[in-house]
């Protein structure tokens, strides 16, 4: 029994954390948060040079061929730092190609994705609640006609992995004709959305696998969101505790008041045990295929709800400054909003987990 991270996994987290401390300190994060586009290619390139873009991809295409847990621990670190990079969508899009692409497609597409030289994203969601493969309706022909909603990094991705009817996956190049991208004002300004409209756009079907591949992509995505939520929520607990130890009222630090102590304790109680939940969900993706989908849905709904609540509490703990644009808490508050909705709200995933239990 060794339910813990390996030294290598800890090192990976430390490396990414240190990089972000240096290259994306708060001033830089705030600048990107307020920026019109909010994307810094240099920051992405730096992360990619650490190997972050290809952790999960086969070695023969330039990846590190590690497990989903390795990917998830990086997601946790990025979540803690509120990193404004398209890691999540890029990881899923490249995973989709590596699972469902033909040998030729993988050879052609993956190396540039593993190195981070090109950015890929996923276009799954449709008008409402259309996140799951069995819900996708966009017809899979030689060309696409229709729209995809809530596509992260739509404005700077080079490649779109599109969810199609029947749980099929297709790849559309950004340079393809008939693509129109509309910016959506996103609450979370560290991960922005766009809407993509396809009009007669040529699509390349990833025909190497069936709907199972699409499900696995979604399941891994749920785990990554859970990990991001854990990282962000734990960070909020830490910054709230630090604030309570620093801020004085009535001549003493506010962290000495029992009302606040209990609120902070409850925040920690909500979050701390779910570290093991996301670890297990990540581990299951590679080692317990029978329960992988269900535990992914449980982890995502649980952690995104806990993160949302802790973000509200953290804002309250910080008082007036917590409610301002100038305060930093709002950045994580809005990351929680992204994590809650992306790949389906807690409602959708609780329904899915209940269905999968056979209840």
């Amino acid at each position, binding site marked *: *029994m*060794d*339910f*813990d*991270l*390996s030294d290598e996994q800890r090192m990976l987290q430390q490396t990414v954390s240190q990089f972000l401390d240096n290259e994306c300190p708060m001033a830089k994060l705030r600048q990107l948060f307020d920026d019109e586009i909010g994307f810094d290619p240099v920051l992405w390139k730096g992360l990619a040079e650490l190997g972050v873009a290809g952790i999960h991809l086969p070695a023969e295409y330039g990846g590190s061929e590690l497990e989903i*847990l390795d990917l998830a621990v990086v997601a946790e670190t990025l979540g803690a730092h509120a990193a404004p990079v398209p890691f999540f969508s890029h990881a899923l899009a490249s995973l989709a190609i590596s699972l469902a692409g033909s040998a030729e497609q993988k050879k052609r597409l993956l190396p540039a994705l593993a190195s981070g030289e090109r950015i890929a994203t996923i276009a799954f969601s449709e008008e409402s609640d259309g996140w799951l493969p069995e819900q996708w309706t966009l017809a899979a022909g030689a060309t696409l006609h229709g729209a995809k909603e809530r596509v992260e990094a739509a404005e700077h991705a080079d490649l779109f992995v599109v969810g199609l009817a029947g749980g099929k996956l297709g790849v559309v190049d950004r340079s393809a004709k008939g693509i129109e991208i509309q910016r959506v004002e996103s609450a979370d300004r560290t991960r922005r959305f766009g809407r993509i409209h396809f009009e007669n756009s040529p699509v390349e079907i990833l025909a190497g696998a069936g709907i199972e591949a699409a499900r696995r992509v979604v399941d891994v995505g749920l785990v990554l969101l859970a990990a991001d939520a854990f990282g962000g929520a734990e960070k909020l607990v830490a910054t709230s*505790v630090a604030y*309570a*130890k620093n801020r004085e009222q009535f001549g003493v*630090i506010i*962290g*000495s008041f*029992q009302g606040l*102590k*209990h609120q*902070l*304790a*409850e925040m*920690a*109680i909500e979050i*701390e*045990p*779910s*570290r*093991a*939940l996301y*670890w*297990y969900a990540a*581990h299951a993706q590679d*080692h317990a295929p029978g329960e992988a989908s269900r*535990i992914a*849905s*449980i*982890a995502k*709904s*649980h952690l995104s*709800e806990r993160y949302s609540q802790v973000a509200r509490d953290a804002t309250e703990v910080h008082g007036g400054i917590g409610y301002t644009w100038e305060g930093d808490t709002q950045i994580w508050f809005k990351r929680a909003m992204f994590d809650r909705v992306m790949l389906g709200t807690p*409602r959708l*995933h*609780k*329904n899915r*987990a*209940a269905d999968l*239990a056979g*209840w």
Partner: protein
Amino acid sequence: MDLSYGKEIEAFRGEVKAFLKASWPPTGEAAKGSKEEQLRRFRELAISKGYLGRSIPRKYGGSEQAPDPLKGQVIQEEFAAAGAPMEPRGIGMMMLVPTLLDRGEEWQKEKFVRATLMGEIAWCQGYSEPGSGSDLASLKTRGELVGDEWVINGQKIWTSSAHEADFMFCLVRTEPEAKKHAGISYLLIDMKQPGIDVRPLREMTGGAMFNEVFFNDVRTPKDWIVGNRGEGWLVSRTTLKHERNSIGNAGQMTALLDALVATAKRRKIDGRPAIQDPEIRRRLVEVEGYIRAHQYSGFLQMTKDLKKESPGVMGLMNKINSTHIGHRIAKLAMEILGDDGVVAPGERNLMGAEMDSDSTWTNYYMATVGIAIAGGTANVQRNVIAERGLGLPRDVAADRSK
């Protein structure tokens, strides 16, 4: 990350399984005599195999095994699966025996440890008093040394199983001149004597598990003290040296959730099985999320234990996590029972088998409030987490000690 127990432990599991298959329930020669005799023989056998009494030296009746949390876990899993009895439940094995082993005199260990392990004697804990709950060290029950005996006067409350206990381990103020914590001694008291009056306290569930205990010139020998005079507070804090069992509790939670699902399949809401109600389904998953997090945190804590690392703030949260999960299960059970949530509670049973009867759930609905209070209220737990876990300042309490 590796969730298997490893070859050696799985081989050990095989031995335990084979032992249980042959020995429980007792058959043939072993099935002769009263239930108590059968139980006693089984425990002796299990101790001789090294499955029970593992942290207790051989000379006091235990099997004196090297601490091994995984073996401890496997034993618990397999005994539970076979429905076989382990060490006697209750406060004697949980609190008194580890305390005696750590701080007791030789004769005290010889006299009490084996008998407690074999279930021949039962204990109760005399800590709380009417005016001393969370502020336990303010306790007032007096002990005076008169000749060769302590003479004890005062009152204890919330004393679980005092009506069944043979002995009490008790915190008594023996040094009235000393400071609050330094004036307390840890005494052992024979419950079967005049001067002790045990009165049951009826719980809101209707059951009566705990009691008030009145002492009127109760006597106990001078040397029935554990540790020195005035050291009782420290003695009572003796760390439990048992093999940590962080998974067991999550197993009970999972059994409760299974029972709740069974209840939801049996009960109807709006004319169809409650399990088909979308809100009930989602709330079941929500509760399961908390249980799974608690369960896997148990894996993590066991791993830390094996590596001899500190579990950190997580280690302080187990009680309040169980409490919160209990509240959530209880409230959801009431939702599933619907209008039958007005029925009076039935027999107390928190252990699964008959859990899905309606009146057991109404009992559980109330009993979970008790869990939130017993052994340190949720608010005391929050203080501990905030102070020891998060490093926030201690509450103002000039007379507090460690």
